C-alpha cells in the first residue's frame, strides 16, 4: 500500500514538473521571439487599421519589448488615428502576428507620420553617433525606448517626423535624442 502511495506521489510530481516545464517553455518562447525592425510590421498593422477604419493613419510607433543593439525589438506597437471615428487604436505585432489590438483610452488626434520614415535600425545609427553611444559608455546606460511621431518632439519644423530615442541609466538623468526620420540627422538632444 505504501509502495502504491509512493508511486502515485511520484507520478503526481512528474506531472507537476511537466506542467511547469511546459509553462516555462511557453514563456521562454515568447521571450525569445526574434527581434525585427519597425517597418517589418507596418504592412500587417496597416491591414488591420484599414479593416478598422478606412481613414486610419499611422500616428505613433513604439517598441513594446526591449530593444537590441541594432534597433530591433521582438514586439512593436503601431498606433493609428481615425479622424472619422475620432479614436485611436493600437496593434502590437510579434513574430508576424497581431498579438494585441485595443482602443487607446485617451484622446490622441496626432498628425500622421510621413510615409517615408527611416527604419528603426538606420535611425539608431544616427542616435548612437549623436550622443547615445557616449551616454551608454559613460553611465552604463542602455536604450530603452524608440518613439516615432510627427511634430511633437521636433524642433523648428513641426511637420517633421522624428524618431525619439530614450537612453536610461541608474543614477543619471535620461538622455533623449531626436533624429529626423527622413534624413537621419540628429535634431536635438536633452537630459531629463
Amino acid at each position, binding site marked *: 500500500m505504501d509502495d502504491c502511495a509512493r508511486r502515485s506521489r511520484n507520478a503526481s510530481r512528474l506531472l507537476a514538473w511537466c506542467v511547469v516545464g511546459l509553462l516555462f517553455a511557453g514563456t521562454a518562447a515568447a521571450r525569445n521571439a526574434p527581434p525585427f525592425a519597425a517597418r517589418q510590421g507596418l504592412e500587417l498593422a496597416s491591414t488591420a487599421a484599414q479593416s478598422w477604419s478606412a481613414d486610419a493613419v499611422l500616428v505613433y510607433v513604439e517598441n*513594446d519589448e526591449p530593444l537590441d543593439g541594432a534597433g530591433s525589438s521582438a514586439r512593436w506597437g503601431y498606433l493609428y488615428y481615425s479622424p472619422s471615428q475620432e479614436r485611436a487604436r493600437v496593434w502590437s505585432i510579434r513574430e508576424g502576428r497581431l*498579438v494585441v*489590438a485595443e482602443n487607446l483610452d*485617451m484622446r490622441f488626434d496626432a*498628425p500622421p507620420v510621413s510615409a517615408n520614415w527611416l527604419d528603426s535600425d538606420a535611425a539608431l545609427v544616427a542616435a548612437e553617433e549623436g550622443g547615445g553611444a557616449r551616454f551608454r559608455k559613460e553611465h552604463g546606460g542602455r536604450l530603452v*525606448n524608440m518613439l516615432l511621431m510627427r511634430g511633437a518632439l521636433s524642433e523648428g519644423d513641426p511637420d517633421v517626423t522624428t524618431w525619439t530615442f530614450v537612453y536610461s541609466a541608474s543614477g543619471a538623468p535620461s538622455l533623449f535624442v531626436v533624429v529626423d526620420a527622413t534624413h537621419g540627422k540628429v535634431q536635438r538632444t536633452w537630459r531629463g
Partner: protein
Amino acid sequence: MRHARMLHAPCPGRFGSHQAIALLVVGLVLLGPPGAQAQDELITTVRIERVKPAREKIPTLRFLKANRDFIRGRFDRLRQESRQEHAGAGELDPRFLAYRELLARIAAAKDSVRVSAEARERAELFASVSDLANLERELDLMERLLDEQRVRLGTLQADFAGRQRTELDVMITGGALEGRLDSVVVTLEDGTRVTAGLNETQRESLKHGGVFEVFRGLVEPREQVIAIAFHGEGWSVAAPGYVTLEPARDVLTFLKLDLAQAHPTRGITSVLAGTWQLDPTVPVFPRIPAIPTAPTVPPLPTVDAHQDQP
C-alpha cells in the same frame, strides 16, 4: 460486433449482379462529387462556447501611456500653431485609364459581332462553298474576340477579385428544432455590432437548405472572439455564444452556423459551427473548344488548282 462481422463477411456464392450494382451505386454516392468532397475537407469545425474565452493581457505603448499628458500637451501646442499640410494631388492609377480603353475595345468587339450576325441573318442559305468560307472566317473572328475578352476579364479579375482584403462572412443555415429565430446579432471584438433580422420566408428557406448572410465585412487579421446571439421565441433567453477565429490576412473567411440540431433549451452551443476560406487563386476561364467547321467540309478544288493540273 459479431453481427457486423457477419455483414462484412464475403459470400461469393450469393453475390449476384444486383448486389454488385447496389454496392457500386452506394460507393459512388459515398464518394460524391470530387468538388464537394474537397469542400468538406476545407471546412474546420469550430466550437461555440458559453463563456467568453479569457485572453492574456499584454501591455503596449507603455511609454506613451506613462507620459500621456506630456505628449498630448505637445500635440495640443502643435494644433494651436495650426500648421496643415496641403494634400497634393496624387498620381492617377494608370489602371483606371486602361479600364476605359478596355471598355472601348469591348464596345468595338460587340459592334463587329453584331455586324457579322446581321450579315449572316441576311443570307438565308449558303449557296456555295464561298459562303462556308465566309462562315469559317466569321467563326474565327468570334473566337479571336472571345480570346481578347478572356484576357480583359483576366485583367479585371486580377485587379479586383485577386486583391482580396481580410473579410469575414457569417451565415446561418438550417431550421432550429424548436423556437422561432427573429434575429441574429454578431459582435466583433472592436465593438462592431450587426443585427440581421429574419422574416418568415427566410426562416422557411433556411429549413430547406437556404443560407442567410448575417454579416460580411472587414476584420482584423488576428485571433479574435466573435460573440453571437439569437433572438426570437425561445431563443431570447439563451445566452450568447463565443467563437474564436483567426481570419487569415487578405482572405475571405466564412463562418457558417448550422441550426439543424439547435434547440433553445440546449442553448447556442447546440448550433454547429464551421469555418473555411475562399480559395484566393484566380480561376482560369476554360477555353471554348473551336467548332470543327473546316475539317468537316471537304476541300474543294479551286479554279486555279484545276489550271495547275497538267
